[in-house]
């Protein structure tokens, strides 16, 4: 148990935890001790020797110079940061580092947010006296994200400690020795880690800098920034986008102790450039005519009113979005209600909706412990089921890596190995749809086990039996309600005396959990059936590319055939906006304010930046304008707006109380909202093992539509392929590189790749969010 002790720092007494790190104690209390190698997430190593202070075990003993990062608080300890000898020593350490550091501050990319600059000023080193030549290095090509400039290195080892020790990356190292230590890859090449961008932040100087930011460089103090929430997956990391001259220049993580803490993944950091993509919508369109966005909004209302007048209110439907805020989706619902209709859907399919609604309901139900990212780091045994965690919720993966570092075994149930599998205790390659059954077998030790899974289940059961804080992570983005249910059951069953199992689901978008909790939404089939049966004539779509919900462009075109009027609000050009009668452009996510609910039911406010440009309205503003144009503006004021999703009705959540720098609030639903009833577990989709099952593989780079518009992400996205287990390919007499035509069986074809870390009898294809512009260009090329 923690024990309070009293220590004295620069003459003032502080009560602190015994054993706490002295440097952290000081930093937490605003007592700035210069330091480099220490990082709250990476811990102390004592390499830079900068954080020296005079430390005495008690007031009657003389103080000795020691490193505060390597000292733990003990009762009576006396620390003097301002001790003359300590100050002189720190100054000298900076002088040491400056012996070889280039004097390129005025042109250095790091200038203005350089820790070395700050620490130099803080340490009062001003005069450089060395007259000897400085060491120089050759730099490496490290891929599209990171620029390398070794001459600036001060050898604090933060990069390898983050990259290798913390994020378990395997391609960055420290080479050489004495005053010739080099940090880089064994040979030039793209950094493999999904978290490589954090090197930019952990490096205290400009050795690793953001390559994109550096290309059109701006000084950090010239950037307009506002705390936002990442838009590229359901984890909801807090980020700090920076704009200058109307374009987004970079994204950095912002500290959020309850979510991502210090770091973000490379999709989050480098995906934001979609904001600058040429296909961003810059003007409104109405039946091919380019007009002012607000004029389009007004015209849309006119058309919708006319359709309602002609065919009745039920002839209008809406499709909301998991990448738009709660407020925007709420406004869409209100607009629809103002028109007299209730048909609003949020998901790609009924199955995805069912799974997401069940998962979200469980998440906020309070019936089981739901793990946040910091909670995940403390798990002592982890089960991941139903997908590639690294690709689909990367920062969860980084938290699991912390659990792994602390010794937690990880067991993965998925059809195809992903990045996390290399650190897992064991992985079982399963057919899609069978994860639920396997998870149940692990939890129920009396259940019989098939021979193939014997070793896996036995090991998993043993690890579970040995654990005190197991954790289950399951996908809620693939429409597998049985898996959602099985993970819930697993959590309940394995929470026993002395063991608390926790749970988390990951979803398909940054606000998928939020829209999954919507009351009175419809299954998507209600919308598509209505269109097919000519009952629905007009469709309003919010920030959503419907073409991604269909397996082919023909199917998509067929589904839209009967629509009389399609209006889309979005910030980017998509296949849907291209097909729309009316396009109302809104600003990008990072220019919008609103609320997202992340995977754990945490509502996080984000602040938008007002950036001058042809489009200035947010999606919510446009929708509110449309509601007002209907003369129904009253619906916006008051309760209806904020309770559109019923999330605040019986919870402590008051959205307006959330400040942008808040860590967010986790929603708990009251008894009034029963978890949506769930259909009995759906049977595995491909029951005959002889049939091939299709596995759509998500990638961190390439599968998410917004980030795919960022050039460095697109550069790293996979090319289309079809993957098979080598044995399966052998049976089919297919070899690597041959064209695998499975159009009849699975509707896919392409060049074959062999992958022995893919389940048998499964065919994998990448989910590729090919930008609209490229798709049409490809089409033109094919036609030509």
């Amino acid at each position, binding site marked *: 148990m923690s024990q309070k002790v009293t220590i004295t720092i620069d003459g003032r007494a502080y009560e602190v935890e015994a054993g706490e790190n002295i440097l952290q104690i000081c930093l937490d209390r605003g007592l700035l001790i210069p330091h480099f190698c220490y990082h709250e997430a990476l811990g102390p190593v004592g390499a830079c020797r900068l954080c020296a202070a005079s430390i005495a075990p008690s007031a009657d003993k003389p103080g000795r110079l*020691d490193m505060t990062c390597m000292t733990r608080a003990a009762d009576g300890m006396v620390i003097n940061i301002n001790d003359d000898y300590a100050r002189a*020593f720190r100054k*000298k350490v900076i002088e040491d580092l400056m012996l*070889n550091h280039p004097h390129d501050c005025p042109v250095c990319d790091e200038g203005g947010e350089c820790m070395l600059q700050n620490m130099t000023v803080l340490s009062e080193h001003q005069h450089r*006296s060395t007259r*000897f030549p400085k060491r120089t290095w050759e730099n490496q090509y490290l891929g599209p994200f990171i620029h390398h400039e070794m001459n600036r290195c*001060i050898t604090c080892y933060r990069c390898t400690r983050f990259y290798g020790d913390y994020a378990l990356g395997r391609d960055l190292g420290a080479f050489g*020795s004495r*005053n010739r*230590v080099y940090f880089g890859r064994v040979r030039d090449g793209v950094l493999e880690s999904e978290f490589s961008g954090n090197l930019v932040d952990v490096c205290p100087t400009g050795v690793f800098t953001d390559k994109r930011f550096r290309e059109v460089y701006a000084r950090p103090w010239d950037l307009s920034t506002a705390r936002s929430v990442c838009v590229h997956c359901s984890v909801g990391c807090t980020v700090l986008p920076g704009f200058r001259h109307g374009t987004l220049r970079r994204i950095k993580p912002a500290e959020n102790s309850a979510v991502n803490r210090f770091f973000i993944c490379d999709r989050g950091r480098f995906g934001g450039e979609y904001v600058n993509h040429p296909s961003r919508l810059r003007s409104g369109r109405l039946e091919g005519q380019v007009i002012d966005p607000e004029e389009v909004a007004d015209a849309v209302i006119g058309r919708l009113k006319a359709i309602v007048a002609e065919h009745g209110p039920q002839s209008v439907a809406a499709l909301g979005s998991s990448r738009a805020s709660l407020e925007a989706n709420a406004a869409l619902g209100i607009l629809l209600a103002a028109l007299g209709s209730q048909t609003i859907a949020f998901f790609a399919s009924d199955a995805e909706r069912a799974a997401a609604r069940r998962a979200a309901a469980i998440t906020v139900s309070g019936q089981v412990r739901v793990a946040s990212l910091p909670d995940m780091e403390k798990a002592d045994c982890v089960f991941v089921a139903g997908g590639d965690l690294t690709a689909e919720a990367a920062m969860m993966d980084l938290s699991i890596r912390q659990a792994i570092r602390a010794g937690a075994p990880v067991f993965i149930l998925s059809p195809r190995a992903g990045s996390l599998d290399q650190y897992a205790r064991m992985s079982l390659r399963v057919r899609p749809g069978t994860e639920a059954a396997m998870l149940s077998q692990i939890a129920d030790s009396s259940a019989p086990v098939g021979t193939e899974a014997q070793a896996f289940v036995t090991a998993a059961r043993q690890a579970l039996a040995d654990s005190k804080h197991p954790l289950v992570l399951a996908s809620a983005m693939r429409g597998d309600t049985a898996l959602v249910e099985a993970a819930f059951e697993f959590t309940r069953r394995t929470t026993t005396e002395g063991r608390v199992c926790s749970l988390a689901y990951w979803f398909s978008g940054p606000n998928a959990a939020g829209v999954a909790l919507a009351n009175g939404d419809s299954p998507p089939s209600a919308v598509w059936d209505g269109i097919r049966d000519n009952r629905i004539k007009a469709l309003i779509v919010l920030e959503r590319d419907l073409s991604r919900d269909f397996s082919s462009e023909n199917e998509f075109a067929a589904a839209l055939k009967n629509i009389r009027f399609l209006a889309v609000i979005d910030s980017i050009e998509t296949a849907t906006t291209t097909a729309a009668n009316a396009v109302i452009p809104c600003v990008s996510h990072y220019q919008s304010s609103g609320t997202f609910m992340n995977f754990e039911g945490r509502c996080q406010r984000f602040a938008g930046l007002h950036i001058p440009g042809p489009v200035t309205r947010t999606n919510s503003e446009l929708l509110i304008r449309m509601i007002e144009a209907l003369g129904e503006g009253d619906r916006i004021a008051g309760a209806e707006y904020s309770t559109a999703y019923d999330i605040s009705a019986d919870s402590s959540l008051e959205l307006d109380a959330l400040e942008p720098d808040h860590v967010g609030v986790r929603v708990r639903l009251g008894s009034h909202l029963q978890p949506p009833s769930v259909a009995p577990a759906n049977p595995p989709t491909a029951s005959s093992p002889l049939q091939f099952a299709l596995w759509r593989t998500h990638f961190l780079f390439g599968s998410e539509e917004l980030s795919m518009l960022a050039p460095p992400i697109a550069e790293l996205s996979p090319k289309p392929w079809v993957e098979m287990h080598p044995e399966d390919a052998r049976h089919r007499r297919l070899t690597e590189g041959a064209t695998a035509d499975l159009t009849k069986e699975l509707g896919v074809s392409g060049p074959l790749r062999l992958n022995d870390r893919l389940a048998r009898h499964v065919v994998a294809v990448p989910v590729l969010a090919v930008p609209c512009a490229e798709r049409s260009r490809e089409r033109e090329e094919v036609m030509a």
Partner: protein
Amino acid sequence: MSERILLKNIDTTRPGPPCSYDRYVKGGGYEGARAALRMTPLEVQQVVKDSGLRGRGGAGFPTGLKWSFVPMDFKGQKYLICNCDEMEPGTFKDRALIYNDPHQLIEGMIIAAYAMQMTKGFIFIRYEYRKGAESVNHAIAIAEKNGWLGRNIQGSGFDFHLETHLSAGRYICGEETALINSLEGRRANPRSKPPFPQTKGFLGQPTIVNNVETLCCLPHILARGASWFKSIGTEGSSGTKIVGASGRVRRPGLWELPMGVPMRTVLEEYAGGPAREHGFKAVIPGGLSTPMMTPDQFDTPLDFDSVAKAGSRLGTACLIVFDEGDCMVNVTENIIRFYARESCGFCTPCREGIPYIHDIVKAIRDGAGCEGDLPTLDEMAKHIMHTFCAFAPGAQGPFLSAITKFRHEFENYLRAGAPAAATPAAGRQS
């Protein structure tokens, strides 16, 4: 000359063939181990404590006390490591021990391993001693054949598996935590303490690292008793010490002498006095990393406490001797170059500071010194005391004493430039 104990089978003037098993046993070899195996492990530890044995690797930490930090109730694997990474400039005692009498070391390791119930051991040998490693490997095989290593040693029920590890070469490997990292196949950066190796060392298991000479004392202590050992040497430093002398003496060499022998006796009687017409100017007493002593201190007895009292350290007790013909600026340049080259590169003052010192000293030596260089060197000498491990403080020993005790020589260089004679031969790289 007093009784040769550790060196009784060794001709220090010529490396001969290593002492054979038969000869070793005939001379009373393995009796210490036999005695130890008849005792309980804790009794063996007590004997070593009572003997007053202090580590011969340089630090002089009481061996029995160091051992007592190893948890005896620990169930998992514990490791014993012999540090034979003898790379301390001016030190050449362990070479004699492992090349010439490997069984003595093996016996010492058996005793230590038994005392702490360590069933696996390594002898970490520097690469340049690879021929010595061969004789050790040969001796290990013989010892195994004779039931002294492997399973159930001499029917005692105690297992001890011993092997050699040939280092890839780096001075810092002599630091025990760096050595452990190196043995684990890592870069030899020192580790932070705590945790100490005794509780969390090699592969995270309890580990003891002892110097060759320390381990070689054990067979004799166990065979002849703690009080016998304690009767040799001084109150605070019992036993004999292998003392060496190199540099400007007439007869450089190694001698086993009781702790506390006056430095002057070694210099004059054993090493035969000055090698050249010049008188002695200074001595670095314990391998390079100890402060210089001047002729007025030559009556200092060579034991841990007396040398410490004289402001230096006994270290390895291998004296490096300078005479009046030696230019201390040139000497300092050589000394500091060694440290700059062998720094592991982990912490700032050592990695950056020592090469900076070297740049300055070299500039002074080459006649390119500047006003302000000496105060800078003074500051740097203080500065490098606060490093991660003892490497840079080790460098500070000879460096600070040189710029303090022979400051006038540096001042002369700064005033008059480099004298032609002191400039090193052309073509030398540094």
